[in-house]
């Protein structure tokens, strides 16, 4: 590696540095800018006079007496009850991840171990389901949910998200279980275990790395979803993303766009931490499907 670096001409080095610098600004700057701006008043973050006001906080100083203000956060979390949406999001994500993984590990394991052709057909069907845009499915749910009074409940949304999540979860865990040698559970079955006992005692203890990676993506799907949650949840059961979207409709006119800015930062923070702690798993999960294929 070092010999290669030495041979690298100066122009190439400059080009690489330039590309990386531009990309880093593109990727990270919007987040830093919004984080910084969320502690200012609207007049500074959306400054008519001079964009640099957002950095110095001229109006923030005049209006609130300090260079930073947490008014936006107070307004969103307390006044507009964003905490309720955060709580709902936590509940939805927790149940979606646990149920998805439970169903997914059982299904993925069976699909990895079956040698019959129908297992392949099953995976192919899952692939087709994975390609369906969620909003087209929502237009299929609505009339039925209205008729049976299922609309608006958290439980309904959880089950819907679990189902939408299944195709991806199955594919990922299927390819993960394929990498666990089949001799492991087969030898347990030779020793007299049933299929389920073999799964319970031999496979479960070694499956956690794959399950954690898949869980991260299930979490992302539930956390980031807008189409399903905005259409299927009643106002008091709303999760964070539809709540942010509702700020746009109501508060932009009232001049409280800073509520939306601060809630956007609040939504981003957990994702930021997740990438920070699980970077390796996320990268391995993203490349699992690709590199093998």
């Amino acid at each position, binding site marked *: 590696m070092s010999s290669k670096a030495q041979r690298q001409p100066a122009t190439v080095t400059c080009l690489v540095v330039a590309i*990386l610098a531009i990309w880093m600004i593109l990727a990270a700057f919007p987040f830093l800018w919004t984080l910084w701006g969320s502690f200012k008043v609207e007049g500074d973050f*959306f400054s008519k006079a001079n964009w640099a006001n957002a950095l110095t906080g001229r109006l923030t100083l005049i209006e609130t007496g300090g260079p930073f203000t947490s008014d936006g956060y107070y307004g969103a979390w307390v006044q507009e009850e964003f905490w309720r949406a955060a709580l709902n999001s936590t509940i939805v994500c927790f149940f979606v991840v646990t149920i998805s993984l439970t169903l997914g590990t059982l299904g993925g394991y069976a699909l990895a171990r079956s040698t019959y052709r129908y297992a392949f057909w099953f995976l192919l069907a899952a692939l087709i389901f994975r390609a369906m*845009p969620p*909003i087209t499915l929502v237009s299929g749910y609505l009339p039925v949910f209205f008729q049976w009074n299922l609309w608006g409940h958290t439980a309904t949304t959880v089950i819907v998200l*679990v189902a939408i999540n299944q195709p991806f979860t199955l594919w990922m865990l299927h390819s993960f279980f394929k990498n666990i040698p089949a001799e492991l559970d087969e030898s347990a079955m030779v020793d007299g275990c049933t299929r389920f006992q073999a799964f319970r005692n031999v496979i479960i203890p070694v499956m956690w790395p794959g399950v954690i990676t898949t869980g991260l993506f299930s979490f992302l799907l539930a956390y980031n979803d*807008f189409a399903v949650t905005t259409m299927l949840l009643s106002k008091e059961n709303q999760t964070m993303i539809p709540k942010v979207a509702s700020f746009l409709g109501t508060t932009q006119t009232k001049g409280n766009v800073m509520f939306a800015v601060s809630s956007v930062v609040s939504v981003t923070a957990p*994702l930021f931490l997740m990438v920070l702690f699980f970077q390796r798993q996320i990268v391995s999960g993203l490349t699992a499907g690709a590199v093998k294929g």
Partner: protein
Amino acid sequence: MKHKPFFWFVFPSALAMLLFIFFPIVSVIVQSVHVEHEQVIKIVETCDLFGCKESTTVDHDANAALRSERPLGQFSGLKIYADRNHLAIDDLGGNWTSSKSWRDFGTQILNLPFYKAITFTLVFTFVVTPLVIIFGFVVAVSVNSAVKKIRGPLIFFSLLPMMITPLVGALILFWMVDARGIVGSTLQYLAGDPDLSVKASTPLTWVMLMVYGVWHAAPFAFIVYYAGLQSVSQDTLEAARVDGANRWLQIRHVIIPHLLPLTTFIALMQLMDNFRVFEPIVSFSAEAHATSLSWAIYNDLGGETRQLSSAAATSVLTIIGVAILLSPVLVRTWREYDRK
């Protein structure tokens, strides 16, 4: 694995997908060929001192009875598909005869909601996908030639635009390009036009949406390519170098052929994902300038009057679009399975 345990292992997952993915697709198809019942009108005769008068009122009991008897509504065949909000066959014919040139015909078509949506969706899909591949590749090669120590932080920041909630990520960019935001005012300065507003201009809105699309998806291409670069054979590279290949030739003849299968994978995934484009249009409040198929469904479903049949018809048309884009993926998966 034997049939019986396989069945029980797969059963919960299969049931969930059957109930909440397969049935809704069927339900959407059924709904799209039904319309709501017309109101049952009854004629009531009211008599008073001055004689009898006939008046018409809505018969609520009969309406309710009809609705509970046939909750789907009236069968309407393909009428919804042909109406102005979908394929607009009559309008299309009218425009064809009335328009003087291709250009004229094009503008008229873009006023029809369905064609407006599908035009943007397709342009978005086929512009963003190649750009994502190019950007992802350039960034991956650059990160790969950076010093090992800083690669971790580089990857961390590169992942952020992809991990962020689409709605939220689009909002962050939208606020920056606002006429009063940092990028918006920079653009005004560069263009020398203090009234320039991205929001108010159709071409600029399209460009912004696509910039968002590339920003959001490029990290995916980057990460896949970066993983691919780790498995480039060092021997082949060394051999190329000995033969006098410069950096560009090494990339052209060793690295790109090695990454080609990954490119197919990224392209197929991205085509499907970009075809769903939806959240950025909500975030940018761009519906006056650009709509997508998913947005059209969302728009029909929301609001005071839920137009379920109309949404269902658009959904079916979207599913047909997805099916066309999906077919190469299925063929590829099929071949791979047979090879094994």
